[in-house]
């Protein structure tokens, strides 16, 4: 069987396929009897494996977890099957047997990040708490919820919302951004003013009273009250009816969008860029900030990848010798930091002001690529799909004639902190430094789309 198909069937059995992927898989199964049999065999093995665990025939090695609800939905299902059998028996006059239904594990998301978030009574919101059908209210700060189906939602307080089920949120108040991969297409956010159905995308939503809901689409498409809104478009939906085009404004999402994108905090001159009109991956012009943007959420490193830096420490230059390697099979997210004050690329002036900034990711940094050669070599699979990185020099490589002076004066410092998640830059403005690609361990589901 084709390796890709087998992988797809495995994703299907793990519940990770989108409706479209299921459609493709079914079309493949319908093609030939051989395909249908391969699919049937895989499903059959899957079901039999479940039965074997259920019957206790393949000893489970895990010690029971305190407080964990290990009751499986399979129990529930098999009980359901028994009910079906009982129903038949009842119809022929035999007794129905009864038994209490076990409870399901009802959580479908986790508060993956809590950044200064607190409840209305001042209690700090803890991260790593599993959540299910419930209403959540925060007085301030940010929380990011990661759903089991791969979607994530970052909310800035004050906010109040109700998780109605894994695919449905009722948003009463607040500012939020959403990233919804193919696996969660159809994810719906309701407010008092509008129904927003995600069609596989990233978008921001603001509900601050006043009888209207603002929706701003960063990537892909959403449906607002039945109207399709595309990337780079924004609308206001009003309670009294009607969806009106509005100004595409991402500023309001500047705190929440980075958290949705895996960046917990930026300080100093570091600025995380929300996608939208005027955003040109690779050549975003901003001479006031070190701009950062997410290039790809999830990339599988096929062959061991040489990077420039991977270990915590303080670096004053990128050495051109052999760098550390990220092993094949690793999954990473890539971000690009741009420090190119426009028009200053060719200058090296020791009197320029400092460019300082810090960025903290929610997952460990596994490598930094800062040399022009490696940046160029990795653009194709780590760069933004729509990126135009141009032909200009890039990378953390000061001109040779200034190198010794720069090193001696300690002008440019890059620190990869011991927590492996924080990157600190302190450079002289006007350095030839241009871009740094940061590779972070990917925590995204395999169904996320790049």
């Amino acid at each position: 069987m084709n390796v890709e198909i087998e992988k797809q069937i495995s994703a299907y059995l793990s519940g990770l396929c989108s409706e479209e992927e299921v459609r493709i898989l079914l079309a493949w199964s319908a093609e030939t009897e051989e395909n249908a049999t391969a699919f049937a065999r895989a499903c059959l093995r899957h079901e039999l494996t479940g039965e074997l665990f259920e019957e206790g025939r393949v000893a489970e090695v895990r010690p029971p977890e305190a407080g964990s609800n290990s009751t499986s939905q399979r129990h529930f299902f098999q009980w359901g099957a028994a009910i079906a059998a009982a129903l038949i028996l009842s119809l022929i006059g035999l007794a129905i047997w009864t038994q209490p239904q076990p409870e399901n594990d009802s959580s479908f998301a986790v508060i993956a990040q809590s950044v200064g978030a607190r409840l209305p009574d001042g209690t700090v919101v803890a991260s790593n708490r599993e959540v299910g059908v419930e209403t959540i209210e925060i007085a301030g700060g940010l929380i990011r919820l990661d759903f089991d189906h791969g979607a994530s939602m970052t909310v800035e307080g004050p906010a109040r919302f109700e998780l109605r089920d894994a695919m449905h949120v009722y948003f009463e108040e607040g500012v939020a951004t959403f990233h919804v991969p193919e696996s969660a297409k159809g994810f719906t956010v309701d407010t008092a003013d509008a129904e927003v159905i995600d069609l596989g995308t990233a978008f921001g939503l603001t509900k601050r009273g006043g009888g209207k809901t603002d929706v701003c689409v960063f990537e892909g498409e959403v449906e607002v009250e039945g109207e399709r809104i595309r990337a780079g478009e924004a609308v206001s939906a009003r309670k009294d009816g009607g969806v009106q085009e509005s100004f595409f404004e991402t500023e309001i999402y500047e705190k929440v969008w980075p958290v949705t994108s895996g960046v917990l905090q930026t300080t100093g001159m570091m600025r995380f860029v929300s996608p939208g009109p005027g955003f040109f991956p690779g050549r975003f012009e901003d001479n006031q900030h070190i701009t950062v943007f997410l290039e790809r959420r999830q990339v599988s490193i096929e062959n061991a990848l040489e990077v420039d830096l991977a270990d915590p420490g303080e670096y004053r230059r990128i050495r051109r010798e052999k760098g550390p390697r990220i092993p094949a099979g690793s999954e990473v997210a890539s971000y690009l930091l741009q420090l190119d004050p426009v028009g200053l690329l060719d200058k090296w002036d020791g009197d320029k002001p400092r460019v300082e900034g810090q960025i903290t990711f929610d997952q460990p940094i596994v490598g930094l690529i800062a040399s022009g050669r490696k940046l160029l070599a990795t653009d194709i699979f780590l760069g933004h799909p729509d990126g135009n990185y141009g032909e200009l020099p890039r990378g953390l490589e000061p001109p040779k004639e200034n190198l010794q002076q720069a090193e001696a004066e300690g002008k440019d410092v890059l620190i990869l902190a011991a927590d492996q998640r924080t990157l600190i830059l302190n450079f002289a403005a006007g350095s030839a430094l241009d871009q740094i690609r940061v590779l972070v361990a990917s925590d995204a589901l395999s169904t996320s789309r790049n």
Partner: protein
Amino acid sequence: MDDTESFKILTVEWTRAQPAVARFVRSFVRNRADAEDVLQEVALAIVDRFESYDASRPFIAWALGVARNLVKSHFRKQLRRPITADDESAVDRVADAFEALQPEVEEMKEALAECIRRVPDEERRMLAMQYEEDLKPAVIARKIGKTANHVAVMLHRLRLGLRQCVERKMNPHQNPS
């Protein structure tokens, strides 16, 4: 044959066929609660239509025929897109395959049991979380401190390994694909 006799036959046949029908339904209806509902519908339909069952045909084939129609009906209700000819054809073909595979199910289950017992403890723990607790990769990942993608990849590799192991055991003289 009176009604009592007829119902006795129905009960016996359904008891035999129910596991295969349940596996088939679950293969297409991935949500457990929905699968339970569909299986109940199948059970009721079988009772309703039992008079039309031709006893010269295998009951399992007839039961799978009823089940495939209700799976398609479930698709029509649940899918956000129109059901296609390919969807229907896949359900029919896979139902036929389930019927054809029936004679080897017990052997497959025994082979699978032996293969799973050989899986190292850590991986077997992951299998147990997926199969016994019915947890999704993201939830398993949180419990074991790995990424969801790591879990999804590991589960794929485990399934691949189990398939090859089962094929070796069932067809010792053939090279697994």
